[in-house]
């Protein structure tokens, strides 16, 4: 596989795409597939039109990424990953426009079960008010008929919020997918997945008493969780919720052998605390803490582990949470610099609104928060 990543920050989407085309043509006579990350400052109605106008009949998938990773750069514009197979590699796509717990869940489960030999990169939206992507992923996970679940990875598109509408869509085949997802299925590739949490759990364990959807209402013997968090914020003496991203809650999934998932606080309400992922009753958690040094240390370990499993990857994908970037502060670039320097391959990725990947034991699929997922691949 020959893979390379390109970027343009031109304020006009058309010009940005034309810049990209010019750069790509310098290096590729032909290619098999294009993956675009497009900032949501560009009008989403234009994305399919301009890609088709500039790249004609090229096979592509595009998605909103508030910032994307192009090798060592963080790009606020349009970026493109170009893939050309030289052996037997192939890419196909599958998409669902509106997720639901009936038809679309069944279609997706059937597709994944029928294609268990392939590697699937899933790029999703947040879902709808009725069905959120996190719950969909969890239900999907329970219906997969194979183990280990080590072939699905991805992230939730990220974008700016206009009039309560988060522009976090996917674009394929002249369609704008607002409440669904796209799956890129790779055939004849070897791959390895690495998961980097980084945050360290502290103290004693709490139990979720009442939860619904992405919200926690009460903990332990019925104590309001919002009181705990409000008290916490008073002590910090700052009402900016983003400061709580340094101390996300760390779920301990004991039934899966102490596999952890982090949940980041989205909103503090009088009656509940809202997170960026599903919460279930009786789940146990601790508070955690992380800063750039701790996170980068874990990233390094993750990349070195991956390097041991796959010494010469041809392309790396990175799905890293936007809240994690806040905690990395001015060292955001160091995360991708670490990955590219250790794995020595081109890197493509974006800041996500949630990461999709297997748990550490490869038993289930999870929607992660504040996590950095790494995928290394090479053509067979």
């Amino acid at each position, binding site marked *: 596989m020959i893979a390379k990543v390109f970027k343009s920050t031109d304020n006009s989407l058309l010009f940005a795409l034309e810049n990209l085309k010019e750069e790509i043509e310098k290096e590729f006579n032909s290619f098999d597939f294009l993956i675009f990350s497009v900032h949501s400052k560009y009008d989403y109605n234009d994305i399919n039109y301009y890609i088709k106008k500039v790249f004609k009949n090229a096979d592509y998938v595009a998605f909103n990424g508030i910032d994307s990773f192009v090798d060592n750069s963080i790009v606020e514009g349009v970026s493109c990953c170009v893939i050309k197979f030289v052996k037997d590699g192939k890419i196909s796509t599958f998409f669902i426009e509106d997720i639901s717990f009936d038809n679309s869940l069944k279609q997706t489960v059937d597709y994944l079960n029928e294609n268990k030999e392939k590697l699937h990169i899933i790029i999703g939206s947040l879902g709808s008010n009725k069905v959120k992507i996190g719950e969909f992923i969890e239900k999907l996970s329970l219906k997969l008929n194979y183990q280990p679940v080590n072939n699905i990875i991805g992230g939730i598109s990220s974008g700016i919020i206009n009039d309560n509408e988060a522009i976090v869509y996917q674009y394929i085949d002249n369609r704008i997918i607002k409440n669904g997802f796209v799956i890129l299925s790779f055939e004849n590739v070897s791959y390895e997945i690495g998961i980097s949490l980084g945050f360290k759990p502290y103290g004693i364990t709490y139990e979720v008493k009442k939860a619904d959807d992405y919200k926690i209402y009460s903990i332990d013997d019925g104590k309001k969780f919002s009181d705990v968090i409000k008290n916490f914020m008073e002590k*910090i003496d*700052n009402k900016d919720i983003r400061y709580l991203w*340094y101390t996300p809650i760390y779920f301990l999934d004991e039934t899966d052998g102490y596999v952890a998932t982090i949940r980041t606080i989205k909103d503090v309400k009088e009656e509940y605390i809202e997170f960026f992922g599903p919460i279930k009753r009786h789940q146990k958690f601790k508070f955690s803490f992380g800063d750039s040094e701790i996170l980068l240390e874990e990233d390094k370990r993750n990349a070195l582990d991956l390097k041991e499993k796959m010494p010469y990857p041809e392309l790396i994908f990175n799905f890293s949470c936007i809240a994690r970037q806040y905690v990395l502060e001015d060292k955001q670039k160091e995360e991708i610099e670490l990955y590219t320097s250790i794995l020595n391959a081109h890197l493509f990725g974006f800041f996500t609104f949630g990461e999709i990947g297997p748990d550490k034991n490869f038993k289930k699929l999870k929607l992660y928060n504040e996590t950095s997922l790494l995928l290394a691949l090479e053509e067979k």
Partner: protein
Amino acid sequence: MREKIKIKILQALLEEVTKKYDDSITEKEKLLQKMFEMAVNDSLTGLYNRQYMQNYLLNLIKKAKRNKNEKFAVIFLDLDNFKSINDSFGHNKGDEILKEVANILKNSFRECDLVSRYGGDEFVIIVENPSFEVLDNLKSRLRNIIETEFKDFGISVSIGFSCFPKDISNVKDEEEIINKLLTIADNRMYENKKERKDKKLS
């Protein structure tokens, strides 16, 4: 700016964790206390149960073996005519009366004395270093209080007591001493009951 906030976050985290530990310790202590109470208390009256009373006696005997001056009395108290209360007024009324008697007994002895429910309408009280005059007075005092309190129900009490080491001679085994002390006090309580019955009839 962020460094200061991060320090505050860590401090708040530490405070929350410490508070949670404190809460957890308090909860565990409460649970242990509750478990201890359930193990040693009679669930109806809240007095110590028979098992605890016997362990307490055992410890007193061991103590007395080390300290030859140690003396104590075992008082056996039985409610007269209690069965007729259950038969006539029902078990709820009977339970109510047992609870009231338990309160009277608790208030009639020193904090250092042990008041227990032996079973049914029988109570055993252990009094350390008693004055025998006091014990003699106690019989009539307790009878007066209970007879007055439950006048409408015709309840009275029979009391007997045994004394350590006075009533125990040549018995070395601690379990045997306990049995003997209880048996003597029980027998004396029955004698007392019989005497009072005979007195009434004559």
